[in-house]
């Protein structure tokens, strides 16, 4: 028989234990961890500038990949054979960009995230938030505009927020809308950035009159730079870092047109160098072997900024607009204004102007001058597609890589970045495989 004393003792003990553990449990499960920020706190005024800056940083992450990958595919550089980190799979080295390859998901994802941040900031600033600084709102529009410009210039198709595939031109429409709103609220350099971006977008959309009008307001010395952050490895200047020998020697100027051009002209816009301690790049290209290593010195540190738009490009847009109208002499004047600003690194005199004798020849010089001026800025890949789409006259300074290895002839140059596997596999509105 149980003693009443013993029974009550048991109950008291159990109650005590339960009470102690309950207190611990209730107190313990309410945990606040530092670090990540909950979504709703981004509406706070103190977070606005950081949210806008996040869009700019996002553009930097995406642009790093676009510039780097686009340079290989558009033969601004020769692949060093590196795969994996700061490298490309052999197909991309040859020039192909395939939807399930390793070179397309990074640029897509990072630029899509950048676009989301910028447009989410605009959504908050124009809907959920009562007060926002005009400079923050304008900058959000500018980032949204430029990000959409980069997407439209490089991607084969557009996808917004998990929706269906649309023509890539939809990015450019959005870009123009954002930059137009930015231009209406911004002043000074911020307004120049908006107008220069809109000129680029209008040129891409074939609105040459509009592009010329926007470009005309931009001084030739103006540059809108995307800050490269030397304190964060993700935001280094990738073109520099890929050849910094730390330890990557991932690309080379072997066989490129630019290497020969610089050797002949000393044009300071396409400098290169070599290092006798490292005669070959960091790996070897299929079918060819170790690649003789020479490397671009346009970017001298990992903190060199990217140029998003500049007055010199505006002059070239004006020149291209004139060519579209057949006014090739005027176009030559405009493009030579850009060229002759530069002093040869070898002769120490200003570069000689291009001299054209026909519209077709003027187009050749326009394409050449644009590829020199914007070398390794992530623009040549888009230019090739644009000129092909518009069937513009004139020749390209296209280097012969094919004679080195069949890798290049077996992988025709891609024109744009396809929708990658990671978007296809997750987005119910996009077929899992192209054409399915």
């Amino acid at each position: 028989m149980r003693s009443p004393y013993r029974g009550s003792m048991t109950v008291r003990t159990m109650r005590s234990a339960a009470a102690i553990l309950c207190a611990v449990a209730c107190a313990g499960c309410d945990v606040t961890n530092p670090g990540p920020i909950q979504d709703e706190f981004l509406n706070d005024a103190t977070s606005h500038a950081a949210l806008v800056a996040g869009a700019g940083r996002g553009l930097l992450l995406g642009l790093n990949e676009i510039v780097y990958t686009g340079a290989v595919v558009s033969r601004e550089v020769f692949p060093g054979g590196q795969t994996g980190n700061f490298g490309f799979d052999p197909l991309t080295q040859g020039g192909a960009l395939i939807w399930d390859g390793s070179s397309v998901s990074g640029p897509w994802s990072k630029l899509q995230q950048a676009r989301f941040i910028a447009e989410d900031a605009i959504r908050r600033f124009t809907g959920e938030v009562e007060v926002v600084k005009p400079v923050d709102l304008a900058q959000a529009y500018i980032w949204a505009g430029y990000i959409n410009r980069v997407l439209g210039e490089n991607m084969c198709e557009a996808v917004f927020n998990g929706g269906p595939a649309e023509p890539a031109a939809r990015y450019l429409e959005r870009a123009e809308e954002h930059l137009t709103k930015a231009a209406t609220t911004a002043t000074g350099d911020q307004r120049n950035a908006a107008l220069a971006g809109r000129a680029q977008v209008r040129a891409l959309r074939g609105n040459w009159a509009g592009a010329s009008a926007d470009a005309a307001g931009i001084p030739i010395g103006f540059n809108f730079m995307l800050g490269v952050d030397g304190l964060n490895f993700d935001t280094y200047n990738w073109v520099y870092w890929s050849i910094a020998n730390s330890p990557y020697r991932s690309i080379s100027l072997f066989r490129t047109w630019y290497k020969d051009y610089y050797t002949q002209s000393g044009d300071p816009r396409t400098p290169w160098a070599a290092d006798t301690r490292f005669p070959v790049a960091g790996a070897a290209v299929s079918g060819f072997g170790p690649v003789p290593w020479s490397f671009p010195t346009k970017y001298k540190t990992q903190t060199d900024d990217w140029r998003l738009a500049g007055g010199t490009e505006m002059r070239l847009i004006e020149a291209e607009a004139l060519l579209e109208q057949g006014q090739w002499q005027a176009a030559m004047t405009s493009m030579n204004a850009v060229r002759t600003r530069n002093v040869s690194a070898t002769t120490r005199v200003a570069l000689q102007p291009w001299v054209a004798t026909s519209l077709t020849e003027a187009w050749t010089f326009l394409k050449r001058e644009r590829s020199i001026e914007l070398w390794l800025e992530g623009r040549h890949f888009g230019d090739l597609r644009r000129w092909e789409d518009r069937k513009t006259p004139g020749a390209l300074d296209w280097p012969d890589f094919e004679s080195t290895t069949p890798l290049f002839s077996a992988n025709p140059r891609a024109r744009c970045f396809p929708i990658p596997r990671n978007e296809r596999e997750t987005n119910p509105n996009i077929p899992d495989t192209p054409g399915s």
Partner: protein
Amino acid sequence: VSRTRRLVRAVFFVVGLVGLPTTQAGAQEPGRIVGRVTAVESGAPIGEVQVYLPTTRLGALSRQNGTFIILQVPPGTHEVRAERIGLGAVSQQVTVAAGQAVEVNFRMGTQALGLDEIVVTGTAGAARRREVGNSVAQLEMADLPDRPVKVGDMLQGGIAGINVGAVGGQVGQGQRITLRGNSSVAMSNQPIIYIDGVRMQSQQYPAVTSPDNRGNRGPLITASPLNSINPNDIERIEVIKGSAATTLYGTEASAGVIQIFTKSGSVGAPVWMVETQQGMVKSRKFGPPAAPYMWLDPWLRRGYTHDYTASVRGGAESLRYFTSGSHATEEGILPLDEGVKWAARGNFTFAPTGQLQLQWNSAYVHDAIQTTPVGSAAEHLTLNAFRGAQNYFGNADPKVVSETLKWDMDTDIERFTTGGTISYAPITNLTNRLTIGYDFSEQLVNSLRPVGHFFWPLGALDVNSWQDRLLTFDGVTAYTFDINSSINSNFSLGGQAVGDEIRMVEGWGESFPGAVAPTLSSAARTQAFQDRQKVWNAGFFVQNIFGVRDRYFLTAGMRIDGNSAFGSGFGLQMYPKASASWVISDESFWGDGLGSLKLRAAYGKSGRAPGAFDAVRTWQGVGWNGEPAFAPRNVGNADLGPEVSAELELGFDGSFLNDRLSATFTYYNQTTSDALFRVLQIPSQGFLESQLLNVGTLKNKGSELTLDGALLQRESWGLDAGVNLSTNHSKVADLGGAPSFSLGSGGWVVEGQPAPVIRTRRITNPEAAEAPKIEAIYDWGPNSPTLIVAPSLSVRMPYGVLLATRGEYRGGHYMQVAVESGGVTRSAKVATCFPYYVDPLNTSVALKPDTPALWRARCTPSINSGDWYTYPADFFRLRSVSATIPMDFAVPSQVNRATLTLSLNESWTWYNSEWDYMDPEMQGNNGAHEQVVSPGYRVPVPISFRATLQMQF
């Protein structure tokens, strides 16, 4: 750290005082008890038997030849008791005359089934083995003849259903442990670990890599906290493997529970044990014939190990103690691999009254590890050596590649665990137990590429401090009472709260003035990183065991948990359990000669919590050009809860043929519902990190069989054989609408396939001398073994010499071994392709015309892919061959027991005939944390030889 050290010093100062031998004063001249312990079955002597007088503090351990002597025994009549785990306890009355010796001999019988042994893991409080309806595996340190130096090695093959996989052969590297396969594809499958009732860090330490972009540069070792425990401190290990047994541990226990019990003090005069172990390691071959060591020959070496341990245990009924200290140095097979370890432990038992007992156990370890740069990283030794002239130096000359060794990779690990348990039993049938424990771990990595480093001429330094603090509160009240004359009830109520806080601070500096020893402060450019997260899990449980006539037992229980990582809309999680056991051999119809048999069945649930931030939609603060910036981090899921595993377990424990054969069999069938999947998010929606969702269903089923047989039992000769066999078959039953997803290294989560399955493209004409034909998707099979067989054999010889061997086979699984692919895609000439190159000596990678399609794919840069390197991973490894030799004849008579153990470990391996290179017991850069086992740029576990001399006095 300094505070911890002060505390540790204080603890061991006290330990030292208590551990001092004491003298006894007596009015009469004391006598002594001498005798011998032998086996009932064979008459063979038995060592390690605790022989003591329960009413005094006197006692002794029997030597290897079975003899013992108890000194300073007061004249009079005493009860003398002999005990050893696994043997039936026996006692005798003796009368000791003043100044005289009295002889008492004991004959002890094996309790193969041990139905009345107490087990505590998975039960509320403690229960007799006969009462428990689920399997509880037990490993006795004394049963391991080969003197393993790591706890992971003790477990390897020692228990059916455990998979202890090595990560590689670097010094400090821990093992990956899973029980009954993978119950999760998103969270860790590492069981949680308790030591003396205190939750300790269960996960291996993180693999630290420097933040230089895309680097993987750093020590890349994932040391296991288990290996910080000195095996000599361990009494036994209990393992419960599935949810049917782990219910009472709740939300974090679906991958199983390992509980370690360290030695406690014993009644009697102080018993000292000293041990020295000297060893040597060398590399096994792990490359193809063209490069048996994958070109690492110039750097591989023989390494030497030196271990020294001392302990003392003793005490009286009211205060018992066990203290130990150890020092070990270790050289690895790689040129910079070294380790120095210091460890100390103090376990104290206070029993001021018969009703109250306080147990306080503390341990401290400091492990300093120096590492050679290995792993898939551009500046590391292995990658550059494996790739020959296409490495990052563009030069295969060993002198040049040795530049990778100009790198100081130092890892300092400190662990301190302390815990106190108060047991209060005011009356015979009521027990209360409260445990409070604290477990602290720190891994401090200093990774310095000094000024003059080949790739960092101005130097780079990464300092990473990672700390884990675990706080355990565990209380249970158990009340036993008789419902009537044949039915009794054991009612338990308790609760448990575990707080886990992880803090990481990392600093990076680059560009140093050359003349100073670099610190982060002297760097020209610095960066800092920090992460802190705390998770609390708290729950209550209730359980009742009904016993009928001490042969039928029915257990019902429930645990209810809350967890700070659950989504705000989730609430509490309930885990029910029920089990039954029937000691059928106690029935009257059971013949005496049939042995003992217990049938059992159990069903239960337990869970696995998501991570600290997984439930909340968050953004990450990131810097950009000196300004604050935000980036999307986690989509969030307010309904996020634990994945819940339910398991049915059926089996039996039996001993037959007069206990000469014991058998344990278990069949289990697990279903993990609401399985957590890291579901990829749509990139165009802006959040790139995958989000945990409770969407899937995983299944695991298999069987486990343990057989131990005494094939020969003679006084001088004995032959024992045993085998642990387990099968495991997993299946992703439902993806919940999520698409199949990759876990990397060829591992995929695919509906209807094992979790994970190795899925790659495949060459369909591998043997044909023609262009490869490619199948786009092929599911090879599971990445985890479906069959593990661990046989063991021991021979007892005259003079107490014991020869023992054990091995382990794992099979039925596949691995991707893509190491060579990284070289081929860079047009490097790799060793596995040498038979197919037209000219292996020049730089051309042209292949012979008759090269089979599979090797064309593997050796042609433009079509090479890791997909072509999928292998069946079956292997058998001889884990150890050992000889234990009593050395009593060679030591002074004051030494109670002396044994010399010689062991050759991991010495021979059989691989599947398709296996070309590397070793199945290797891992990628993330070491033990990799979800998919795939050998990476490492070296395999070395062959080792050890000589251990242990003396007791």
